[in-house]
């Protein structure tokens, strides 16, 4: 019987700690911030040494972009993952925070405003918040489709305004500034990319820390509750609308902060930074990373920034690959890349990861064959498609392939089809191995 009649709500007579007290202590111990300190410590160390490990100017630029994306994607997940609000217009707060940051930068330069550069992201955040308050005021009344549609409408509206109001948004060229005109901070004038990197890293750390802490506050916990069951939340005293509004404002603040970081890094904002493409991009980052985990958007931001910067140097089809990755995530890994890793937790804890890894190893060969074949086909197809301009050489994996001849096509097709067939044959065995590695560990009640 599950509903017992225990009356042991107080301390028991013989001075033994009552069970409920142990549970409360355990919950508090597990949720304690001090338990996450090692992770934050590791993050500090990693952020510190990254420019030493990857000192090239290109690498530092990429890492800066990652930092901006991390803050932006984390702020997006305050809506989607934690609050259950699917937004198609989150770039509004990022972009407006960024534009206003550039304008403030220019006022520092021309009007003699006093503002040390490290405070600029905070200014961007406050502007993001300033826009989130009125927009959140009417758009958080409902979640679901209504919220999504309003976010889309607002996103479209602001994007349209950015083209119309040339004085503020600078039209096609956007608005540019100069970050080095503020008062030096401890002698730093932020002339070099590395200085900007450390500024960005610091802001990323602080922003991530506060967003994490927010998720552990009453407001953050109730955001989860409203996401789960908005009706029930109302019957324990919470206005679903106000709970969403608080999350929305916090999210707008951190998105604006990311916009401020963008302004510092690129010293220019254009209409692109607040349009629907950027709004879609942040959705991709959060979703591919995994919206159910705090670190999910961080993973997504890192992976997609790498694809955007590194992959785009090698192929003009990189956006197609990102799209395929997104579709595959939605279909086969709805908990994102982080979810794929996390689902191996039970196997790892029970020490059964070994056989599973072996099974994966076997599957690696057909997987690589399939990917290689598919990529070859796509890349060659792309070149063949453009053959009107007289090009028939495809450059893939360091090879030069003549797409007007049959052999490369044959090889690619064999790789793709063979790989896919072998993978399909292996799939049941993989599922089996996964079940065996995980089942016994988590199954026993």
């Amino acid at each position: 019987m599950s509903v017992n009649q225990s009356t042991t709500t107080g301390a028991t007579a013989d001075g033994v700690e009552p069970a409920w007290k142990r549970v409360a202590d355990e919950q508090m111990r597990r949720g304690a911030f001090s338990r996450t300190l090692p992770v934050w410590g590791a993050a500090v160390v990693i952020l510190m040494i990254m420019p030493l490990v990857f000192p090239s100017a290109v690498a530092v630029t990429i890492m800066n972009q990652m930092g901006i994306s991390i803050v932006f994607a984390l702020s997006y997940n305050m809506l989607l993952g934690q609050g259950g609000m699917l937004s198609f217009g989150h770039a509004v707060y990022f972009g407006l925070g960024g534009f206003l940051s550039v304008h403030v930068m220019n006022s520092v330069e021309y009007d003699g405003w006093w503002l040390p550069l490290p405070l600029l992201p905070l200014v961007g955040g406050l502007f993001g918040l300033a826009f989130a308050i009125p927009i959140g005021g009417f758009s958080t009344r409902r979640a679901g489709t209504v919220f999504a549609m309003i976010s889309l409408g607002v996103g479209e509206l602001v994007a349209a305004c950015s083209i119309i109001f040339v004085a503020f948004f600078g039209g096609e060229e956007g608005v540019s500034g100069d970050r080095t005109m503020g008062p030096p901070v401890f002698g730093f004038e932020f002339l070099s990319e590395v200085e900007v990197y450390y500024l960005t890293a610091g802001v990323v750390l602080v922003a991530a820390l506060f967003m994490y802490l927010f998720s552990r506050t009453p407001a953050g916990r109730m955001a989860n509750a409203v996401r789960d069951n908005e009706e029930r939340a109302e019957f324990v005293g919470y206005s679903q609308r106000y709970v969403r509004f608080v999350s929305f404002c916090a999210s707008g603040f951190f998105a604006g902060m990311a916009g401020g970081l963008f302004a510092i890094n690129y010293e220019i904002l254009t209409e692109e930074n607040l349009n629907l493409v950027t709004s879609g991009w942040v959705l991709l980052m959060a979703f591919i990373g995994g919206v159910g985990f705090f670190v999910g958007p961080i993973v997504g931001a890192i992976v997609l920034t790498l694809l955007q910067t590194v992959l785009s140097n090698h192929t003009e089809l990189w956006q197609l690959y990102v799209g395929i990755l997104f579709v595959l995530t939605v279909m086969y890994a709805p908990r994102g890349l982080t979810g794929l890793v996390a689902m191996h937790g039970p196997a790892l804890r029970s020490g059964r990861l070994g056989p599973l890894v072996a099974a994966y190893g076997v599957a690696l060969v057909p997987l690589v064959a399939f990917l290689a074949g598919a990529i070859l086909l796509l890349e060659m197809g792309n070149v063949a498609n453009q053959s009107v301009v007289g090009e028939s050489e495809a450059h893939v994996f360091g090879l030069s392939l003549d797409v007007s001849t049959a052999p490369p096509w044959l090889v690619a097709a064999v790789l793709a089809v063979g790989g896919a067939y072998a993978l399909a044959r292996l799939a049941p065995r993989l599922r089996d191995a996964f079940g065996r590695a995980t089942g016994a560990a988590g199954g026993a009640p």
Partner: protein
Amino acid sequence: MSAALQMQGVRKNFGPTEIIRGIDLEIRSGERHAIIGPNGAGKSTLFHLVSGKYSKTAGRILLNGEDVTGLEPYQINRKGLSRSFQITNIFPRLSVFENVRCGLLWAMEYRNSFWRLVDTERELNERAAQILDEIGLLDRCDLPAGVLAYAEQRALEIGITIAGGAEVIMLDEPTAGMSHSETEGVVALIRRVTEGRTLVMVEHDMGVVFDLADRISVLVYGEIIATGTPEEVRASRAVQEAYLGAVDSAGQEVN
């Protein structure tokens, strides 16, 4: 004795159909009041009207003398009324522990604060654990609420409802679908947690009703046809004709 809850001429139409057809009912402060009636009589609808889930077509509802007719559910809850649902209504992805903790947050005046961490609030977590102990789910506290067994979810439903310590508690069929022994446990639990509070309860199990209730109202076809002590209701001719008669012959509950 003052009234905890007053319904005055409450009506509810769904389209052309009149589901609640003018209800005047006073729930006294501190009493345990059962509402009984056949399926589809409108008992749950009445709960939805009182707790603010549905708007009223006509009539007024007073909570401790204060008009709460047009208020939202969360506003009514903040004024001291907490209810459970006939169809389990919990936070399925949150842990069992968090479900109960969510039931406590507003009542313990945490509001929407974003400057306090739930994990450092000793009193909050201890209260939540005590309630879990009370409802017998202490050893389930880490599971997502959605995976609990049916009877456990029903217990959690009650736990969330009583967590905030509301003065007026409304339970919609708390023992529905439970085994005999489970029902006994829940009755004892209800008795304990509603000590010194006002309870309004919809219940089909006549054993439970006559065991717990100080007074009973009989709702038939959207109207209250009788209100009184268990003895009075049992003796009422109208009730026997309209409702209890069926139970009488079927279950030998009334003699």
